[in-house]
């Protein structure tokens, strides 16, 4: 474990039983993420990127190997690693401000402090006009803003994001990506972000980690040395995009062959 590592994953295996066989969702994963780094996990579905994220979050612990956050082993979920889920996962019975305040109430903060914090987060994410709304009355983009605010309220140094923008239209998506970069620069979080979009990974991350399909291993750990704000039409961006596309295509083919074999057996 290197000294400045914020999240440290060492020799992690995750094995599932499927039809009497061991399936390696994760195999011998080593990953060091330094404080303040923005890392994207990229891969086709079934490559174990969400499994790895859930292991860091503490929702499902590895079969073997070690995960440390700030030098402490991960044994359970906790507010030091706030998670933004793909399905928004806002509490529908709480208004926008109640959703954001919930984590602070659990922490046991004073009422006035909670109110101040909620107000500042509503402003930070441009949600002031929606504070009394229920999630059902919000668009997908707005809901994900609230989900981000709810995690930011915890002041957790780490943000875990599981394909948070996957369900959004292209424009809203770009908007929120820019917003996320702004927040990341401003608040200096360490972000581990799962996506299956090459462009999203290259647009956001300092490092893009490409994972293989079954067994889930790290195929490529690519440093993205492009200046921000990044231009998705620039030659540099496109060169990286092409490189990653080829890598990803191989995994996608293996995934499809696997499904085809599965179908033939059925």
């Amino acid at each position: 474990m290197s000294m400045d590592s914020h999240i440290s994953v060492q020799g992690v295996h995750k094995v599932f039983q499927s039809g009497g066989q061991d399936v390696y969702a994760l195999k011998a994963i080593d990953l060091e993420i330094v404080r303040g780094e923005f890392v994207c996990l990229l891969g086709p579905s079934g490559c174990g990127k969400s499994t790895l994220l859930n292991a860091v979050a503490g929702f499902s612990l590895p079969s073997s190997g070690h995960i440390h956050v700030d030098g402490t082993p991960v044994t359970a979920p906790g507010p030091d690693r706030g998670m933004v889920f793909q399905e928004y996962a806002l509490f529908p019975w709480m208004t926008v401000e109640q959703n954001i305040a919930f984590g602070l109430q659990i922490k046991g903060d004073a009422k006035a402090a909670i109110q101040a914090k909620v107000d500042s987060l509503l402003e930070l994410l441009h949600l002031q006009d929606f504070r009394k709304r229920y999630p059902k009355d919000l668009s997908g983009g707005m809901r994900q803003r609230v989900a981000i605010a709810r995690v930011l309220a915890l002041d957790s140094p780490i943000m875990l994001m599981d394909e948070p923008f996957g369900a959004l239209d292209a424009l809203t998506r770009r908007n929120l990506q820019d917003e996320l970069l702004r927040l990341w620069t401003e608040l200096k979080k360490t972000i581990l972000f799962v996506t299956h979009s090459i462009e999203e990974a290259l647009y956001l991350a300092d490092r893009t980690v490409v994972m293989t399909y079954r067994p889930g291993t790290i195929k490529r750990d690519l440093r993205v040395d492009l200046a921000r704000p990044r231009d998705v039409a620039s030659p540099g961006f496109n060169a990286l995009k092409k490189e990653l596309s080829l890598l990803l295509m191989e995994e996608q083919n293996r995934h499809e062959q696997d499904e085809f074999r599965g179908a033939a057996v059925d």
Partner: protein
Amino acid sequence: MKRYRHAASGILVPLAALAFWQLLSTMGWVNATILPSPMQVLTKWWAYLRPLEAFDPTQGSYLKWCFSGELPQDAMGSLYRVLVGFAIGTGLALPLGLGMGYSKVVNALFNPLIQVLRPIPPIAYIPLSILWFGLGNPPAIFLISIGAFFPVLMNTVTGVQNVDSIYLRVGRNLGASRFTQFKRIILPAATPYIFTGARIGMGTAFIVVIVSEMIAVNNGLGYRILEAREYLWSDKIIAGMFTIGLLGLGIDTVMSRLSSRMLRWHRGLEQG
């Protein structure tokens, strides 16, 4: 405009039915004892509704006098039994349902017994209820609480069991204790189910009150229509039946208004 037109078309069929009914009577096609005319029913209804004595300030307030008629007294008696029975049934079903939904152990302990008792209609408890509680309100309330108990119980269990696991994951991620998870996540997530159960339970309670009054009690709407049969007062029977219908409708409207008020956050059917 559209709203009024809808209301107007809703009145069309009842009016036609009423006209047809009046026609049957006026033409003398049916015996008035078997089916009295609408006018006859209405007259009887009014007589049943209005106070029996002239207003006397020494006997109490004007409001009390207004409700001194036979029908208001019966309706209040029935309503009282429904509310008490419903409160007892729900009061027992809710904690048990929450426990059974939340804990596999509690569920394993109680579910077999519940599944055996559940198919027994409340009506089947009548002999026992009279044996145990005699006549009057106690057996009626006992039957009504059984009627309300099972729908509330089953819906509460389902509601708690069906809480989307993603909400619990968020709760754990935010650091919620088990108690907080239960109070702030599981309970609110289950309320739409619980309210549905309460509405069904209230409907059952209303059916059971009428039946129980026919057997165990000497007042109430159920008792009154059975009593009217003894005298072949078919007009009073029909007036009583309509009163039961309207009262039931009123209760259900209150229940559904109450639940949509409290569940403003809930994604309604109209939104899929």
